[in-house]
């Protein structure tokens, strides 16, 4: 396996979705390729950074309306 092949397999590798032989070839490649190890780590970090991102805000009027709807719901 070379680096150009490995970089296209990173998502499959992170998902644990590959067959054992391919996974083993990835691990062997990673063990001796610092560049790809870094690439893999950066993929993980990118995914984590996306997850930590606060999204755009709901307009205050919509937020207020939803809070009002929650408050106004009949409960027993």
């Amino acid at each position, binding site marked *: 396996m*070379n*680096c*150009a*092949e490995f*970089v*296209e397999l*990173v*998502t*499959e590798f992170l*998902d644990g*979705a590959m067959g054992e032989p391919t996974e083993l070839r990835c691990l062997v490649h990673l063990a001796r*390729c*610092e*560049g*790809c190890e*870094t*690439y893999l*780590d*950066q*993929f993980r*970090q*990118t*995914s984590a*950074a*996306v*997850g*930590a*991102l*606060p*999204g*755009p*805000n*709901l*307009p205050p009027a*919509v*937020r207020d*309306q*939803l*809070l009002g*709807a*929650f*408050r106004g*719901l009949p*409960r027993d």
Partner: protein
Amino acid sequence: MAGPRELPSDEVLVQRLRAGDEETFALVLDSWSGGMLRLAMSFVSTKDSAEEAVQDTWLAVIRGIDNFEGRASLKTWVYRILVNTAKARGTKESRTVPFASLLPEEEGPTVDAERFRAPGEQYAGHWVAGQEPRPWHIPEDHVLRGEVRELIAEAIDELPPRLRTVVTLRDVAGYGSEEVCSLLEISPGNQRVLLHRGRALLRRKLESYLFGAQGVAGGRGRA
């Protein structure tokens, strides 16, 4: 301040929501609406429409919380309602994002071929010296505040809609690949291709930014 807060367990959340605890409702509303808006935007044509889809979703959640059975997580349940709502709106607006097959521009290598040694060369397909990714470190608080956060937000908005949908579902909403395939009616292979391409584009943006900002010649062409 705007970062993600630790939410109580689903069991506690659901119990409080059913009891009408407003503070808890505000907490989930504020924690999830941002990611939901981002996701809705990939199905519908305008920001207004995305906001309405999110609004309709929350109204359905408010009315339906008693029916929540806890088979999936609360967040998954809420997102499922959103995906169905946003999809239906998108169809009405003729802005469906069909996932049945891949577009030509979604296939092919996700890393610039120039960064690898050419075929026929020694070590063909391995990183060209100086072109290999250099380790970076993004401190957590740096991600949550400041420019990096803005950069990522912008980069997500610029992703082609299908890539954005899959990246948002997987990395923002935290869905597994099986759930995404069933939500979008897409094959596992195509789901992975779209996710991979989306993440690769985002990683590349971060790379240019982090090394560009530090004045280090990383990533881009050598000369």
